[in-house]
């Protein structure tokens, strides 16, 4: 196998299925690479709740009850099951520690990291910070700390976030998502022509990657 495949992934940091979907996709990507396939992966911005304040004072349960009008008992059940599903992927979700926030600055930082060639590292860092470590991913200083933790220049990150350098890129991603008809995330676009919605089983991603590489039905 020698074909190269481009995968564009729309996701939000505040999206539990996006981190799970990332793990499942990575399983398939590893198999694809082991079979000789080449992958280029790029993340794109999608805001699930752009109305969320940066400093939301409350838990994830509080947010879903107050902003999404969901019954507290069902939300607690949902988060407990989400925690179990994430654990099956090796992820340690901690919804009690999670700090719900607006993610637009996180998306700007992801574009900053992309410009520095470090986007994939930052995606992983932000997901872990948000879902597993109770870190705040909405404020400039907190985000700059996370950027510095993967080796990006903290001062440059602060400047980019403060001036909104990458806000147009975030908006462009959102417009492209609308053009594609994307209403939920994660969403994977393969070579600009195949769309895969949701945290699919790795076997599904594997088959789609093989199809994109012109090897549909082939064994890896």
């Amino acid at each position: 196998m020698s074909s190269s495949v481009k995968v564009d992934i729309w996701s939000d940091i505040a999206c539990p299925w996006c981190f799970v979907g990332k793990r499942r996709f990575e399983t398939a990507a590893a198999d694809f690479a082991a079979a000789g396939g080449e992958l280029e992966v790029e993340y794109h911005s999608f805001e699930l709740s752009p109305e969320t304040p940066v400093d939301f004072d409350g838990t994830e349960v509080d947010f879903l009850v107050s902003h999404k009008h969901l019954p507290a008992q069902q939300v607690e059940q949902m988060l407990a099951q989400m925690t179990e599903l994430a654990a099956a992927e090796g992820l340690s979700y901690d919804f009690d520690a999670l700090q719900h926030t607006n993610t637009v600055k996180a998306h700007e930082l992801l574009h900053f990291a992309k410009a520095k060639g470090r986007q994939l590292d930052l995606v992983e860092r932000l997901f872990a910070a948000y879902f597993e470590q109770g870190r705040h991913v909405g404020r400039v200083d907190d985000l700059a700390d996370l950027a510095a933790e993967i080796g990006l220049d903290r001062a440059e990150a602060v400047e980019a976030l403060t001036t909104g350098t990458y806000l147009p890129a975030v908006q462009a991603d959102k417009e492209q998502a609308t053009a594609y008809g994307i209403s939920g995330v994660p969403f994977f676009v393969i070579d600009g022509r195949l769309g895969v919605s949701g945290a699919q089983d790795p076997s599904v991603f594997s088959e789609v990657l093989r199809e994109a590489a012109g090897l549909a039905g082939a064994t890896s």
Partner: protein
Amino acid sequence: VSGPLEIVGDTDAPVCEDGVCAVPGATLDRPDDEVERAR
């Protein structure tokens, strides 16, 4: 902006949409009027 996508894979795979994430086995009941209000 590219053209329409060919949707492949499991169309029931879990996603997060409008700030809410579907979880298999967890039923979320929202009265229709509240769903509209949430949007």
